[in-house]
């Protein structure tokens, strides 16, 4: 596996006591991994994602993605890096209300100066939203809007897909559909970093779970995926008849 993301002794200090500071975080993520970042709110997990995405800069330490040291990029270079290498999915979908679903999906490719209508339609087909391509966001359900946002995140074939509580605004069923899609993308080779507070979702899809507390990674668990017999996972036991 190739290392895709590297953070070395990264700190992030916010003025005015804003939560989410990081305190010496080091991390290596290989391409193809599905990693979940868990922790209480304000622990710094979203900050980690924003630094890796190049949406924000660390106070000290280095963030390298795909061999590129993000500190060496100026604002234009950083914008280009985000456009070409990073797909970002947020809790709230941030679709432009005056554009159709298809037009929203196409935004990142248009910023790149390419035409990707065929790929957009393919992606929307894969994500099960082909039939709503010409609708405006206001006429879509939350689950549909999030799938449009995922298609938009994937349109430029990002090396890294970052998802910050992508199911946070969805009902259970739509949330599971969205997570199933992320799981499928990962099986097809997509590297994914997921911020979530939902341990069930995290362990279901991610084979690696980072626990972040007070700006530090306190645990880095790699989980096994082997199929186990039911009796190795659950023992139902009542008392046996003794009399």
């Amino acid at each position, binding site marked *: 596996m190739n290392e895709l993301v590297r953070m070395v002794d990264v700190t992030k200090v916010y003025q005015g006591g804003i939560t989410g500071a990081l305190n010496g975080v080091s991390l290596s993520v290989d391409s193809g991994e599905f990693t979940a970042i868990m922790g209480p709110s304000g622990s710094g997990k979203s900050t980690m994602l924003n630094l890796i995405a190049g949406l924000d800069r660390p106070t000290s330490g280095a963030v390298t993605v795909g061999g590129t040291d993000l500190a060496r990029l100026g604002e234009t270079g950083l914008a280009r890096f985000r456009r070409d290498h990073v797909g970002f999915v947020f809790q709230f979908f941030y679709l432009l209300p005056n554009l159709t679903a298809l037009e929203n999906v196409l935004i990142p490719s248009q910023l790149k100066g390419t035409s990707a209508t065929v790929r957009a339609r393919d992606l929307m087909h894969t994500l099960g939203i082909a039939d709503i391509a010409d609708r405006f966001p206001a006429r879509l359900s939350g689950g549909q809007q999030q799938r449009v946002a995922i298609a938009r995140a994937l349109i430029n074939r990002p090396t890294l897909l970052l998802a910050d509580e992508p199911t946070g605004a969805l009902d259970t069923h739509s949330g599971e559909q969205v997570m199933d899609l992320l799981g499928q993308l990962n099986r097809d080779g997509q590297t994914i970093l997921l911020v979530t507070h939902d341990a*069930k979702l995290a362990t279901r899809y991610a084979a690696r779970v980072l626990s972040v507390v007070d700006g530090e990674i306190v645990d880095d668990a790699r989980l096994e*995926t082997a199929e186990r017999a039911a009796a190795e996972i*659950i023992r*139902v036991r009542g*008392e*046996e008849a003794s009399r």
Partner: protein
Amino acid sequence: MSLKYGVLGLLTGEPLHGYEVKNRFEAMLGGTWEVNIGQIYTTLQRLERDGLVRPAGPRGDRGKQTYELSAEGRQALEHWLAEPDSGPQTLHEDIYVKLLLATRIANGDLQPLLARQKRAYLQRLRDLNRLEERARRDGRIDLARLVRGALLHTEADLKWIDELSSGRTTETEAPR
């Protein structure tokens, strides 16, 4: 006493002999409870002694005896099904005793214990997720419900470990 009532429950459908009871019981539990045939025979004998089941006809080939539910057995089963589980909560995992001992020894530093336990719970959560998927795929909605219960329990265990790790309940001095 669930084996006893499990056997009674299985006999509500049709008369069964010992091996059928064992196989159906284990299939119902989806492999989460294995019983040996001796336990089944002992249970059937006790149920017969107490008048809750009775032999259904003469012994068949290779001496197999089938049993059926008696009216008393049906009544006992219905009574048991209607009763809520109200006994004390059973905490049978070692972690509870380890926690108490670790508070007394190791200078009250629980972090290594909690970190290892957290990983075990994360792994269990992952395994339970797969078991739930498998149960749904096999059309075993009843089993998926059981696994769902286990999942929620494990989520609670994780929350408990996180609460202990964050120090909210560890700041008091270790007891002597």
